[in-house]
């Protein structure tokens, strides 16, 4: 039971991204003395990146179970657009609309499951295809136009009420991470997900109903992406038919970045949250400095590659478990 010396490096790795985040904050505080380190600034950042955080959380569920879900961006857009169409155009009460949207998310998850699990089509293919399908549907139902004027109660629930100065939106993402953390780490279901992702045959030989677990993961992912769409509509107060897809690559980046921290080598909800807000901090700081746009892209890409590389160096460049 001897602890190897590398364990110190491992311990460090757990908190490395948190430290880098702290350093980033310190740097920007130094560069923007008055306005950066400021509760108002952070509280807004926490709220406005909440939909992105929820989306990244949605992705890590099927990733843990060994499937890719590329369609979360399209699902977000479809949900937000559906809210716009039903609530604004069809005047349906917002409560009903939310129920319908979440059920729609479930439907999307089941649709994916049918092809991925029953027909054994690779998840990359199915979710790539459904992204395209959903984009078409969004354009159809919205007439390709932005729909404003979403029910005020949704807006209030997302960004109107605040706790410690932070709009509720953030706490929804936090709550999702908390629940996922409990499931991933303290419920048999979480271990099942992990076993299914890391060794499908072994899981099946050991009596885990692999298919059920995968269906569950795909459905949860789609439902969470729908919830992200609801939050998105709530934060913005409107629904636009195109921008959701832009969240896809950042969400993946956050998921992989998050897998370098807290529980390195595993997709984990707290790591994902840290990654989302670390990137958000960088982008916010750079924007406040008035630095040209291209720098933020370089920051995003560079942070992802560097973080994962350093994590790999920590573990002696052995083959990675993620991805």
């Amino acid at each position, binding site marked *: 039971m001897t602890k190897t010396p590398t364990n110190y490096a491992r311990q460090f790795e757990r908190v490395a991204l948190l430290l880098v985040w702290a350093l980033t904050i310190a740097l920007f505080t130094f560069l923007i003395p008055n306005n950066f380190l400021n509760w108002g600034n952070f509280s807004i950042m926490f709220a406005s990146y909440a939909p992105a955080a929820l989306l990244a959380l949605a992705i890590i569920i099927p990733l843990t179970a060994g499937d890719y879900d590329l369609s979360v961006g399209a699902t977000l857009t479809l949900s937000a657009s559906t809210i716009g169409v039903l609530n604004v155009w069809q005047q349906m009460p917002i409560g009903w609309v939310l129920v319908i949207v979440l059920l729609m998310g479930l439907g999307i998850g089941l649709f994916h499951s049918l092809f991925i699990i029953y027909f054994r089509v690779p998840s990359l293919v199915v979710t790539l295809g459904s992204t395209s399908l959903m984009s078409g549907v969004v354009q159809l139902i919205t007439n390709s136009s932005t729909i404003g004027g979403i029910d005020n109660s949704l807006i209030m629930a997302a960004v109107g009420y605040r706790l410690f100065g932070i709009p509720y939106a953030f706490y929804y993402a936090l709550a999702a991470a908390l629940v996922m953390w409990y499931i991933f780490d303290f419920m048999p279901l979480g271990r099942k997900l992990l076993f299914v992702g890391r060794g499908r045959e072994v899981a099946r030989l050991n009596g885990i109903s692999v298919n059920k677990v995968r269906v569950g993961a795909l459905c949860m992912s789609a439902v969470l992406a729908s919830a992200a769409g609801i939050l998105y509509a709530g934060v913005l107060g409107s629904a636009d038919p195109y921008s959701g897809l*832009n969240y896809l690559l950042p969400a993946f980046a956050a998921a992989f970045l998050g897998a370098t921290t807290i529980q390195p080598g595993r997709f984990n909800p707290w790591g994902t949250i840290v990654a989302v807000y670390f990137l958000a901090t960088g982008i*916010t700081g750079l924007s406040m400095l008035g630095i040209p746009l291209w720098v933020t892209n370089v920051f995003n890409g560079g942070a992802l590659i560097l973080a994962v590389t350093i994590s790999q160096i920590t573990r002696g460049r052995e083959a990675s478990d993620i991805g």
Partner: protein
Amino acid sequence: DEASEGLARATANIEKYKAKPEFVAPGEPFDAKACAAGKKMLSIPNSSGNPFLKGIIDRMKVAGALVGLEVREWENQGQPSQWVQGVELATREKYDIIDLISGIDPGTIEPQLRAAKEAGVKVMTSHFYDPSFEQNPVVSSSLTIGFGEVGTILADWAAVATEGKANIAIVVSNEVPPTIPLVANFKKQLAANCPDCKIIQEINVGVTEWGTKIQTAVQSAVQANPEINVVIPIYDSMSQFVIPALRLAGKTGEVKVGTFNGTPFVLDYIAQGLADMNIGESLDWIAYATVDGHLRDACGLESPKALNVPFYIFDKTNVAEAGTPAQFDTGYGDAYKAGFHKLWGIE
């Protein structure tokens, strides 16, 4: 007959926009320096990646500096969540003015704008609403731009360019709000001035899909309907995909291309004979007019309802004035500069 009368009206209308723009004062002179003293404005573009908007904001900074207005750009990648952060920043740092420039529908980030308004920040838009639009209640004043007017110019130009026999493919992006009045007026004007003109196909492509869809759609349209002799991409950045489509279909020159925005590379297309007409606006003029209009509102003066920046038609006869290669601000004259300086009392 009716057709030739319409054509005459169209020709007259076009001539109006071919003349060098003249400066018309948007209001009474006022002491801009006194008004601007200590005031700050945050300009949030639709996306900092758009060189047109970036150009306007850069020039607004210069124009504002003349009278002491601090203008700052909120850099963003076109994501609404970033716009939200900008609005919150302005609220927190007690800016006087939030300027939503060209493309951010206030309705998209209404909750945050309402909070800003309550905190005493005036929210204004520029180069966004058409005069026919109803302004969002959180907005204090809007410097509108005549998208409908653009539609009428495009329609008349199509009529004139084909001598009243235009068969048109029009490329639009319906999710961008200005599209609606532009296209509506285009159709109305066409019906009024050109009874023989027809819109053969209307191609709606979302902005993010321009690169992947416009070219094929235009190619297909001109193949399926060989009678098409005019293509109108309503925003001129679309034309980078329209021009190759016509080239491939062997219709360059045969099918006329008219568009709107005055982006330099499209003006170059005209110089090269690949496109025929582009309606432009002077960025610097827009910048001055925006600073002028927003200052008036901020100081409680009556704010003009419109930007009042005239449209100017570039075609092969005058495109050389825009420079080779073309520039954003060249060719419009600079009558406005002296005009605004005089209005602001800073000669």
